[in-house]
């Protein structure tokens, strides 16, 4: 009996400690649950305020169109690879063929239809994390299409040779277009953060940061509204080729200028 009592008293103490640590971890877990649940609840309230069933139907259509686009672009990229395969294998005079293939490779490179690598800069811009002060326009605190226009214009003007925005290669027919708060580049709908990668000769970043196209508008918005902004110079970037339509419907090439 006394032995049992002493054994049980020996056991009680560690058990209490054990219970306390369990309680602590459960409390932490519950606190996290509460936090996440509250965040979830808040965001669903916010969403319910703005989302109607019509919007959900429309949003579903957008998602379906984006999936269709991905398939089309994959098919187009595959077909272009096959074309290049035929061009390299073509029969005919070896000299004429070799010369034509060199011209084709150079033309593709100049047009942005080739994956390229080289030194360059990465510029990243995202919506501000600052709370929007009462009475101020919330649109000031998000990345606008003009911010991308300015950054891209400053990069080209600073000697960039190839540019992508979130992986979309910019070519002669590329537009950067705002649809409400969303941004279309080439055929793709992009969301922030926006990463602009540019290949160009050494000093590209310095030239970009001092270019009037950068300083004129977007630099002020970054400073005034706290848009998230970062730049990085890098020795080696690889940018994908443009995937999209390169065929003209209305224009025909004419010989001689």
């Amino acid at each position, binding site marked *: 009996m006394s032995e049992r009592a002493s054994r049980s008293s020996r056991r009680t103490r560690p058990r209490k400690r054990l219970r306390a640590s*369990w309680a602590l971890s*459960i409390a932490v*877990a*519950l606190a*996290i*649950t509460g936090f*996440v649940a509250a*965040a*979830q609840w808040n965001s669903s309230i916010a*969403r319910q305020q*703005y989302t*109607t069933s019509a919007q959900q139907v*429309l949003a579903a*259509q*957008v998602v379906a*169109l984006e999936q269709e*686009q991905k398939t089309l672009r994959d098919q*187009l990229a595959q*077909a*272009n690879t096959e*074309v290049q395969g*035929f061009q390299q294998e*073509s*029969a*005919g005079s070896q000299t004429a063929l070799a010369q*034509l293939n060199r*011209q*084709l490779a150079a*033309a593709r*490179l*100049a*047009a942005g239809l080739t*994956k390229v690598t*080289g030194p360059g800069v990465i510029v990243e811009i995202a919506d501000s994390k600052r709370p929007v002060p009462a009475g101020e326009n919330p649109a000031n605190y998000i990345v606008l299409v*003009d911010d991308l*226009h300015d950054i891209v*214009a400053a990069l*080209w003007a600073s000697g960039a040779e190839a540019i992508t925005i979130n992986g979309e290669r910019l070519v*002669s*027919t*590329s537009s950067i*277009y705002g*649809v*409400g708060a969303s941004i279309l580049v*080439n*055929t793709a*709908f992009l969301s922030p953060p926006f990463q602009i990668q540019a*290949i160009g*000769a050494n000093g590209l970043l310095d030239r970009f940061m001092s*270019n*009037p196209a950068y300083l004129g*508008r977007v630099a002020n918005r970054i400073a005034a509204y706290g848009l998230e902004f970062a730049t990085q110079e890098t020795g080696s970037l690889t*940018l994908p080729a443009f995937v999209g339509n390169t065929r*003209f*419907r*209305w*224009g025909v*090439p*004419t010989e001689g*200028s």
Partner: protein
Amino acid sequence: MAGRAAQVSIAGVLLVIGMLLVGQLRSQARPTELTQLSSQDLSTLIETLSERNRELRSGLSDVDEQLREYRAAEAQGQSALDVSREDLRRITAFSGEAPVEGQGIVLAATGDLDAIALNDLLNELRNAGAEALAVDGVRITAGSVCVQGSSSLEIDGVAIGQTFTIRAVGDPNGLLAALERPGGIISQLKLFVHATIDVSQSHQVLIPATQRSLAPYVAKPVD
């Protein structure tokens, strides 16, 4: 037994946390962002994406046609050099290394337009499907942007005066409608700057080749 119960309840709590976290992450992903756009924005987005997908489909059928030509040449034991030459013509026209002609619009502007306004006009035309563009005699390539030079606007190092002409090859109706729509680029520019902008459609717009070299110096092709 008590330990088992605790394990079960902890597992339950973790499961709930996991589900909530996933819910939270999902709610921050694209589809929700989309539903936060207005119905009008979503409709514009659908219209734009449908149009772009149509372009891609038509581009794809052209490439398929080219592949058929290569296969036909191969089957007949003929040289496919002609098909490749056609491809070269097409690519140099696309990049700006070759001149282009076709239907389109001509925009004449006079006034206080700055570099941003001119770039916005070019961007609007590209978005509306312009295939080839020139400002005065300067062909607009991927990297051709208008900048404020020391004494005037410049594109590719060429001075652009206060009076200039933009030529665009593309669907004349589509290009004109995009420029002149209510609340569009021209009505915006007329609100903020003192300028006269006239747009007319043309059956034959000539776009010269670029004078600059488009061959990159530091960017190397990757196989």
